[in-house]
């Protein structure tokens, strides 16, 4: 759809679940994860051909594809070894390599669009999920969040900020609200953009780093919203059914 919510268009008609769409930097393809042959696989949809195009299948659960800034590589989560880890594969499906090795969920990678050399992702290696960063070869792992339940990172095009969803005051019993935060990757200082209004998740930056699109169930159902990167001017884009996991295209 357009940035104002107009021109909504359905791409996949698989009759099964398709999630986590990610538009390629050149705008020609959408990578997503879908159940195919009884398995979660990374799938590729060509916006030029208006159909799914072939992409390698792996064993295990394959989730959350993320395009590198130059469109030549895709990072994703695969449990082909029995434990979800982050892998990188060339955009043509060749040359798969594993870049994390930690027990527990590793999922939702996002590339630093500025440097094209770092990846932020979510890991449950210490229990509740936290945001981490690393070089795209798997070195220099840094934990960014210090507490709570932090998921769904999106790296701002300026390379400076990570947006993510965080239940910061998570404690025993039911978790609190899940809000969108923005963190400066150098200082790890963060700003809370949404405030205790339901579950907010899957932020995605506009190409100019000034807007963030996200999902929120504050109206009772999951819908797509936008706001300025300082949290002001929150607007609902979708209204019918349930809508989730927005992804702002590079261009």
């Amino acid at each position: 759809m357009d940035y104002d919510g107009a021109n909504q268009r359905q791409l996949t008609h698989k009759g099964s679940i398709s999630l986590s769409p990610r538009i390629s930097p050149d705008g020609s393809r959408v990578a997503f994860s879908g159940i195919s042959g009884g398995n979660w696989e990374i799938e590729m949809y060509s916006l030029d051909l208006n159909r799914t195009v072939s992409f390698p299948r792996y064993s295990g659960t394959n989730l959350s594809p993320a395009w590198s800034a130059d469109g030549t590589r895709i990072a994703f989560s695969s449990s082909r070894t029995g434990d979800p880890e982050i892998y990188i594969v060339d955009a043509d499906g060749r040359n798969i390599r594993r870049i994390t090795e930690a027990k527990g969920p590793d999922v939702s990678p996002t590339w630093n669009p500025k440097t094209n050399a770092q990846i932020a992702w979510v890991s449950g290696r210490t229990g509740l999920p936290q945001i981490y960063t690393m070089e795209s070869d798997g070195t220099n792992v840094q934990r960014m969040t210090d507490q709570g339940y932090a998921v769904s990172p999106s790296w701002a095009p300026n390379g400076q900020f990570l947006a993510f969803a965080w239940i910061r005051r998570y404690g025993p019993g039911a978790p609190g609200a899940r809000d969108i935060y923005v963190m400066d990757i150098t200082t790890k200082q963060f700003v809370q953009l949404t405030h205790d209004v339901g579950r907010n998740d899957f932020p995605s930056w506009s190409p100019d780093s000034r807007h963030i699109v996200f999902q929120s169930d504050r109206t009772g159902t999951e819908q797509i919203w936008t706001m300025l990167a300082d949290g002001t001017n929150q607007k609902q884009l979708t209204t019918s059914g349930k809508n989730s996991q927005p992804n702002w295209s590079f261009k």
Partner: protein
Amino acid sequence: MKHRAIQWSIIILALAGIMVLGACKKKVTPPPPPPPPPPAAPTASLTANPSTIQQGQSTTLTWETQNATDVTLDGNKVDANGSQTVSPTDSTTYHLVAKGAGGSQESTARVTVTPPPPPPPPAPSPTDMDLFNTNVKDIFFDYDSYDIKPDQQSVIQGDAAFLKQHPNITFTIEGHCDERGSTEYNLALGDNRANAVKNALVQAGVDASRIKTISYGKEKPFCTESNESCWQQNRRGHFVYGK
């Protein structure tokens, strides 16, 4: 002599009187009695209760007769009234004949014999899928955890014992999570849960090649209310027959 004559006249008079009297008497003699009525005709009734039996069961024949001196049931002499239990193997018509001075009367009763019902079909032997669904129990998890809890260990052992006894069954373990987590993270967590159950079964001796795993995260909840008992229902490794 004269005396003798008187005697004679007296006799004659007497005779005459008798004759006259006798003639008169004859006039008032009642008509002869009607001939005795003919002997009453016998009656006969024969019933079978019940009239329909299954092979091997019996029924009671009951009969009543009147005015009969000779009563036979299928040729055998019986009492005028009576009952008898019979268990014919085939459908039979019984004949009661009652004979008396007044004639003969017959009555019949039909007993229908039905073949015994076919033996009930043996209870269908449970299929592997039925046995699987009955015996293999799901494994439940704590929030945000894929560790097999201590209280689930015995469930795993029970599952493994059944699965080892039925080595031809292949199956799928679905990993499920509650709605509070985030979509992508829950899919990865559900994958860890499914694999945790798989690994525990493999450790207990179940061949890994029989097991397929898939994660549904929070996409296919068993329960959709927002409370802990419902969330607990959704945090599980769910077994499905076949893979």
